[in-house]
């Protein structure tokens, strides 16, 4: 049995070893055909479970990107409208929520934790953006956007200046992009392992059928 040239596992997912020769594979595993098939089927199931999980994470990330994109548009829109002098007080509360996560609950995040140390586990976070306009009372009616409050998790909301908020959201977005790339690579790796396992199952089964036929043929000739 020879193993594939690539990694033997990736981020906890075991790689499916490629089988050169079924006979050798079975004797090396020291299993009979049915046990080997059972083992391979179980492997396949495990792969599928992981695949489901990763796909869910991927969907969450994609929702997050959508929300971020909308956020940027709104930001720009408001900045732009702030320059128009004859718009009255716009008390706009914008709620943007990224999809909730896979259902696993976060431990409570302590208040005032510095942002850099908060692990960016996107599927578990909700981003809530509250935009507040301050009405200015000067004749020019210049609208100022004062601050932005960002909801970071179940019990944490922090207030930032616009620049800080933009920087934070930018960083979040980049991390999300990186996560997504890794995720996509994981899914592809997984897919390959599933395919290899499926092919191996078919080959073991066929080999077995072939062996039975040979035995039957031998039995038939020895009887005659």
């Amino acid at each position, binding site marked *: 049995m020879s193993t594939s040239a690539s990694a033997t596992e990736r981020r906890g997912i075991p790689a499916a070893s*490629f089988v050169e020769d079924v006979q050798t594979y079975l004797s090396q595993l020291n299993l009979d055909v049915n046990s080997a098939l059972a083992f391979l089927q179980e492997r396949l199931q495990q792969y599928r479970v992981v695949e489901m999980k990763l796909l869910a994470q991927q969907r969450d990330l994609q929702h997050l990107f959508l929300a971020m994109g909308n956020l940027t548009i709104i930001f720009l829109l408001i900045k732009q409208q702030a320059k128009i002098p004859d718009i009255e007080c716009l008390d706009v509360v914008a709620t943007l929520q990224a999809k909730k996560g896979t259902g696993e609950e976060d431990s409570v995040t302590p208040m005032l934790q510095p942002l850099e140390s908060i692990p960016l586990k996107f599927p578990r976070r909700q981003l809530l953006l509250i935009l507040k306009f301050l009405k200015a009372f000067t004749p020019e009616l210049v609208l100022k956007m004062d601050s932005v409050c960002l909801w970071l998790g179940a019990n944490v909301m922090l207030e930032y200046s616009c620049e800080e908020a933009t920087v934070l959201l930018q960083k979040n977005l980049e991390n999300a992009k990186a996560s997504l790339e890794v995720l996509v690579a994981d899914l592809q790796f997984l897919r390959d392992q599933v*395919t290899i396992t499926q092919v191996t199952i078919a080959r073991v089964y*066929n080999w077995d059928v072939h062996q039975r036929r040979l035995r039957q043929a031998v039995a038939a000739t020895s009887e005659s």
Partner: protein
Amino acid sequence: MQQSGSSGSEVEVTWEDQQNINKFGRLNNRLHDLDDEIKIAKETNESLEDASNELILTDEEIVRFQIGEVFAHVPKEEVESRIEEMKEVTSKNLEKLEEEKESIVAQMAELKKILYGKFKDSINLEED
């Protein structure tokens, strides 16, 4: 796509074959994703078209423009130009997706030739 042996033939599967099969599987997945994305892009295009038609008919000056879960009050002309922009972006995206789809279909046809060539009936590369 299934890979299934039928008659228990003795054709050996090499690592290269396995890699081809893997690649076919990946391409097939990407193809399905692409089809979904193309469908969404086409629907978006239609919605934008409907929206701009509605816009021409309306006589309101300030339009409620939707962004995500939020509606913003935006002057009509600006909404028009925004919709135009969005239409252009969506069209370009659609073009790119269709191109990628063409390339993938071609690659899959190539792989089918190779794999059917070696395995004939022992492999099934069609959609079920």
